[in-house]
């Protein structure tokens, strides 16, 4: 296929492709320059929306594409996490425990399911009906010494733990002082520390405190919490799905728009208004979720929540409603709209 023919597939099927091919090759060229290819892709995708005089349809298509891109990325990431490496276990976990708590008996416990925490422990069907509980997040693996408390000074112990972790190849961050803030002075009444270390897709937060109830004098409470970072391949998969979803959303908007271009006011209204309502409801979730995906990809995430969590908790109801609205729009276009090609053929016949 010639270079031009390939790029012209950005345009909807119809005589315009031939017309453009004729114009482009009239000068004797057979391949588009990069600038020409970008120009054709851009205007071809715009032509797929139909309604050349309307700017509203472009705004609508951009918002739909952002939403469908985000949803596709969320679905891909959710499925992808099933293939992500699990928490360390066996000798790998024992080595980590030995590194943090050398010479003492220790325990390890996951605080949720294999991937996520939802205290209701819903089935897939439950999730599809009512979404997730508001505390939905990634599960963590908590590790600690038997009996919770270790004797000695927590500051000195934390320094030792940081050195041991660094020696074992962990990337150890600054140790933060922890404790209550005295309201009158704004000073921190330090009673513990927080040490963060990362290695091979794991983040470990080691927290010490002397403020835990029943802490024996001269001892401190300590736990190490392990969370998994998003693997690079999973971020790449999410973005690939985002792109595919965005293109599909754009093409679907174009299909509905061109199919109803010559339709009556009621049909046009019934395809446009439901989507506008859906977008008003879901665009904030889309923007928040996409921002979280960006943050997760560039390593600013780590809050412990999946980037799509808002849509599955507080936003699940509106997401379902928006899906029904979009479906309504597509169904109206399918049954009441007219194929763009049929419309074009009728025009040709009439002229």
């Amino acid at each position: 296929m010639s270079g031009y023919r390939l790029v012209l597939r950005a345009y909807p099927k119809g005589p315009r492709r031939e017309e453009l091919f004729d114009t482009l090759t009239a000068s004797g060229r057979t391949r588009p320059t990069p600038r020409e290819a970008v120009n054709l892709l851009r205007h071809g995708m715009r032509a797929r929306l139909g309604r050349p005089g309307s700017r509203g349809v472009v705004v609508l298509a951009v918002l739909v594409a952002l939403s469908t891109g985000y949803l596709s990325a969320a679905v891909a990431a959710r499925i992808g996490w099933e293939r992500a490496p699990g928490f360390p276990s066996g000798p790998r976990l024992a080595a980590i425990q030995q590194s943090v708590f050398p010479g003492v008996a220790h325990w390890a416990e996951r605080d949720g399911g294999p991937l996520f925490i939802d205290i209701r422990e819903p089935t897939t069907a439950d999730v599809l009906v009512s979404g997730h509980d508001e505390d939905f997040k990634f599960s963590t693996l908590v590790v600690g010494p038997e009996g919770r408390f270790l004797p000695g000074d927590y500051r000195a112990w934390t320094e030792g733990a940081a050195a041991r972790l660094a020696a074992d190849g962990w990337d150890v961050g600054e140790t933060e002082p922890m404790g209550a803030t005295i309201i009158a002075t704004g000073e921190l009444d330090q009673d513990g520390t927080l040490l963060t270390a990362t290695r091979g897709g794991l983040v470990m937060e080691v927290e010490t405190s002397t403020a835990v109830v029943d802490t024996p004098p001269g001892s401190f409470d300590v736990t190490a919490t392990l969370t998994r970072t998003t693997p690079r391949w999973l971020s790449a998969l999410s973005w690939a799905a985002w792109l595919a979803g965005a293109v599909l959303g754009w093409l679907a908007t174009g299909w509905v728009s061109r199919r109803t271009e010559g339709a009556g006011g009621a049909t046009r209204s019934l395809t446009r208004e439901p989507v506008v309502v859906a977008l008003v409801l879901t665009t904030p979730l889309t923007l928040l979720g996409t921002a979280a995906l960006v943050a997760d990809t560039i390593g600013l995430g780590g809050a412990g929540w999946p980037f799509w969590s808002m849509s599955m908790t507080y936003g699940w109801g509106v997401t379902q409603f928006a899906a029904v609205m979009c479906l309504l729009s597509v169904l109206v276009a399918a049954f009441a709209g007219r194929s763009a090609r049929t419309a074009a053929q009728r025009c040709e016949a009439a002229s």
Partner: protein
Amino acid sequence: MREPTFWILTALASRPLHGYGVLQEVSRLSEGQMRLQAGTLYAALDRLTAEGLVEPDHDELVDGRNRRYYRLTDRGATALDAETARLRSNARTAARQLSVRHGTGRTA
């Protein structure tokens, strides 16, 4: 009116042209200053057709391919007239201001 639109309407003012003809005519009339991309041209033709400023004139079969010609409508000619008057007025104002600067004109 944006510059590409102005030049497309200008190119079609004297006679109907097909896509490549418009590109060549725009380049010739603007003395090479305006070089339209084909994608931009057809997007503009679609928009101008929707606005009623341009319309398909006739189709010709060349080397087995259909070649569509476009023409300026009366509405398009009126729009081009209005734009020409606006540009002429702007140019006159600029010339007057410059003549004051160069000291060759009267001051108000």
